[in-house]
């Protein structure tokens, strides 16, 4: 037993990162599915693990007791360093710098724009039909004030035109930069499959479907080649099998269509 328990939602974005990193390392873990659309992440059981009420979180139990780890990208670095198995960071310091740079670019610049769009078109509409009083109570339980604001906007469809336009600008620009990067190197930031690929794959595999005007065989051949190569990894298949919605399955159909 590895002593690892992972609290995650669907295999994508932040939840997908530690799921796939653990799979790549061959580390077995107890999976605790946190249904974000049922607000499981704000319920007392989960808040006892991560008082911030965000996912993912990972616990690692052993002789030292139980460690709680948060921040998905930092969790991946921990998984890579703590366990044997294939190295998910190259040895060269400059490659390592470039990998960390791209992960930050995704986590703090491009990713938030993907999220805003995703919450506007998907998360909000999914949750909106429920009883307003019940939703209000759910929002009141959210620990982080900025997440409370995001949920309110998503549920009432109140993202502003300016902020949505800014998110769309960033998505278009970011996809272009990733396309250029993957024209220079086989993988993101280096010639070796690494944490950067795991990170960015989890936020971009849906692009051919969600942003067909920006990403696809003709517009972004380097991205498509790379998506397919990562998609074919056994660890991705195993990770996607852990999803409970048809999210991952729908994307697998797209991947099969890329040659």
């Amino acid at each position, binding site marked *: 037993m590895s002593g690892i328990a992972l609290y995650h939602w669907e295999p994508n974005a932040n939840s997908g990162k530690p799921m796939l990193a653990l799979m790549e390392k061959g580390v077995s873990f107890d999976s605790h599915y946190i249904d974000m659309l049922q607000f499981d992440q704000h319920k007392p059981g989960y808040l006892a693990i991560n008082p911030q009420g965000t996912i993912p979180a990972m616990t*690692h139990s052993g002789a*030292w007791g139980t*460690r709680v*780890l*948060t*921040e998905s*990208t*930092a*969790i991946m*670095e*921990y998984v890579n*360093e*703590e366990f044997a198995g294939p190295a998910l960071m190259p040895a060269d*310091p*400059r490659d*390592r*710098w*470039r990998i*960390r*740079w791209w992960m*930050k*670019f995704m986590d*703090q*610049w491009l990713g*938030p*724009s993907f*999220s*805003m769009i995703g919450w506007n078109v998907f998360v909000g509409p999914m949750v909106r039909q429920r009883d307003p009083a019940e939703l209000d109570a759910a929002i009141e339980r959210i620990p*982080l004030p*900025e*997440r409370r*604001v*995001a949920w309110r906007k998503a549920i009432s469809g109140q993202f502003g035109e300016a*902020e949505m336009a*800014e998110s769309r*600008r960033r998505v278009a620009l970011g996809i272009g*930069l990733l396309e*250029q*990067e993957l024209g*220079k190197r086989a993988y993101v930031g280096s010639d070796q499959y690494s944490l950067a690929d795991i990170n960015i794959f989890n936020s971009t595999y849906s692009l051919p479907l969600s942003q067909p005007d920006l990403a696809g065989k003709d517009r972004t051949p380097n991205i498509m080649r790379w998506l397919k190569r990562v998609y074919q990894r056994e660890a991705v298949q195993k990770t996607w099998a852990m999803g409970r919605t048809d999210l991952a399955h729908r994307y697998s159909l797209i991947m099969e269509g890329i040659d």
Partner: protein
Amino acid sequence: MGAVLYHGEPNGASLTVLAALAEAGAETGGEAALGITCRPIDLLAGERHRIPGLSERVALDMGIEGEGPVLVIDGEAMTESVFLAQYIDELAGGAGLQPADSHAHWEMMMWCRQITERLSPAAALLGNLASSQAEIAAIGAADFAGITASIPSDDLRQRWQALHDGTIDAAQVADSEAKVAQAVARCEGQLADGRDWLMGVYSIADIVTFSWLAGMELLRPEAFAAAPKTTAWLARVQARPAVAAALARATVSEPLRAWAPGPEINRWG
């Protein structure tokens, strides 16, 4: 060709990298042993956007910490001060700035991420309002247009523009003050068990946190009034020979009051 570190006054992101370099240099027998030459530039004159001889510039053009230092190696521009500090430590073969234990290392990376995501933008906003804003507002129209035209990132350009036009509102200032107070409270909590350094051993977490918080002690002393452990820790960091050496590179009398447009305030919780 050797590597060149282009940096501003030793404060914020520039201080982080200069202090890490001095620390690693001391371990390995001088910065020259790492092949890195330091070159000061005037960030408020827009010099960071006119670095010559770059063949790979995405990290400079799209870096998200604002006007931070740039390390140039073989024409590739490298940015983001925490990762440059890690790079320098790793280039030196492990200069002791990152804990070897994977859990302690995770804690350091998680801490640095949260500092750069929450404290850095807040400190940069307050610092710029107090110091660089007047300087930026005084730049002549033609020169300012030249600077903004040389900045590829729309969002960084907007942060320069907001300082120039004086459009930062009271709510943003209050939010930044709250984030500085939270960072101080967090340090005080971390140091509560009497430890000398944030992660137990001295690490990049101390360097990064000091780099953004030391200037706040000058600007918002009231935020530190109930945090004696944090102020003692700030003094301890400042007394380290490598930090003192980094601060001694200043071309102004009070580098901890020197700021340039920084990272953006988180736009999605």
